[in-house]
């Protein structure tokens, strides 16, 4: 089946603007994660959804960052008043919390990411 998809693949914005990044998880996956990957680094956890609710948002760096998943499927990461330091690749992943269909429980399947550049 289809994997995790993310749109846009690239986003260039100006400092101070608002951006939205979208993630469409694998169908049937109840858990969804957002990560931020800076150049030369491994992904850093931002937020984790179980269904519609944010189960852990401890990785969000400040209150300019917010994420929603209103219907328990697609998620949107929202960044207000963007800063140059927000430039990074934003990765989304999804997983099953109950294993079925050959997919390992808790294994996270990643999308291709959105490269955000703040000028």
């Amino acid at each position, binding site marked *: 089946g289809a994997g995790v998809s993310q749109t846009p693949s690239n986003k260039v914005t100006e400092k101070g603007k608002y951006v939205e990044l979208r993630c469409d998880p694998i169908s049937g996956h109840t*858990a969804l994660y957002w*990560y931020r990957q800076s150049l030369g680094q491994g992904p*850093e*956890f931002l937020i*984790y959804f179980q269904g519609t609710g944010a189960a852990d948002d401890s990785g969000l760096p400040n209150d300019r960052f917010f994420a929603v998943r209103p219907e328990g499927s697609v998620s949107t990461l929202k960044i207000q008043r963007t800063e140059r330091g927000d430039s990074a690749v934003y990765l989304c992943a999804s997983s099953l919390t109950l294993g079925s269909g050959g997919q390992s429980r808790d294994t*996270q399947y990643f999308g*291709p990411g959105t490269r955000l550049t703040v000028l």
Partner: protein
Amino acid sequence: AQTVTQSQPEMSVQEAETVTLSCTYDTSESNYYLFWYKQPPSRQMILVIRQEAYKQQNATENRFSVNFQKAAKSFSLKISDSQLGDTAMYFCAFLRTNTGNQFYFGTGTSLTVIP
């Protein structure tokens, strides 16, 4: 807090040879999972192999195998018969299971397979 350390920023290997990538981690938990992910220039993170901490047997997936040493908190990845398509960044990741599903990633090892 959990930390994952990959001490080899860059490695290279001749095509068809074997290479081992190292990973160590620090945790006080007894139940967890460990993963190796591959990230080619396309940015897509691809699962290579997964190990449950409660299993003593090392996981294998075709040309990929791990050496899991729980007491030493070591989780190395061995790639046999290296192929040009193995060129990528490799990330070791730790997943704790008792409180949430947060991954902790290492800083990665850039592997180049030389023809």
